[in-house]
């Protein structure tokens, strides 16, 4: 794997934006159904649940599941 400026930039951003109060995947999972419903209702879920928003930005797997859940509810509505 060849290191690229973009990879290093991403790593540096990720490191410097680290917060003390980050939540983990389990807590995100607990909250994400409410987060998705708020999003679909046009409410500002990111503002209401900033730690969930922060985790979704950092964690590719939780984000993947969040987006899939959005797709499910949009598809079924």
């Amino acid at each position, binding site marked *: 794997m060849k290191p690229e400026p973009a990879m290093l930039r991403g790593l540096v951003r990720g490191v*410097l934006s680290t917060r003390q109060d980050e939540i983990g995947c389990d807590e995100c999972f607990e909250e994400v159904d409410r987060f998705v419903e708020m999003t679909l209702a046009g409410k500002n879920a990111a503002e209401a649940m900033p730690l969930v928003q922060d985790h979704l930005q950092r964690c590719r797997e939780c984000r993947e599941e969040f987006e899939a859940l959005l797709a499910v509810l949009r598809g079924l509505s």
Partner: protein
Amino acid sequence: MTDRTNQEWLAELREPAEGGALSDLRSLLIRGLRHAMSDRPAVAEEDLEDFAQEAVLKVLTGLPSFRWESRFTTWAHKIAVHVAFTELRRRRWQDVSLEEITSAPDSDFIPERFADPAAGPEQLAVQEMVVRTLRQTIARDLTERQRQAMMAVLAGGMSLQETARRMGTNRNALYKVLHDARRRLKTNLLAKGLSAQDILAAFEPRGPE
């Protein structure tokens, strides 16, 4: 399929013999998963049925933990999506060992020499400081577990869940391992006297002159 309130779903699933709630839930989860997997042609209909079946079991055992903060069906779809993605990640990475990813000769993912061709001299100086600090921190201050997790997930692009499984832990715990590693790296970077903004500016594609 009849629409149910949260209360109706819970009541019927607690006494599944009395109604068709189980079969309705299973069908609903399959329909939902079709939407979730619409861009994944490799996922077969029978996979969806298996995922939904496993999800129904998890929903039933998890009923006491439903918190009434969302619709019951949203909560159930969340579980089905999680079941499906867990299995898909397992399949995607099943032939890759952790050793392969973390012990490759060029897996030292922070380059010793990093030259961004677009950077000016001041940016280059900051970049060099950052690279040196990151390398030193990884080598001296991180635990072997933190280093291994960073290598696999950040450099190797391996799934957090699958890295965790290979390391004998779970996704949530491995996230915390990486979080601790990032905190340490951040502390050491900021100890060099530059602000986060100054450091980030040195990594912007077109930094300030």
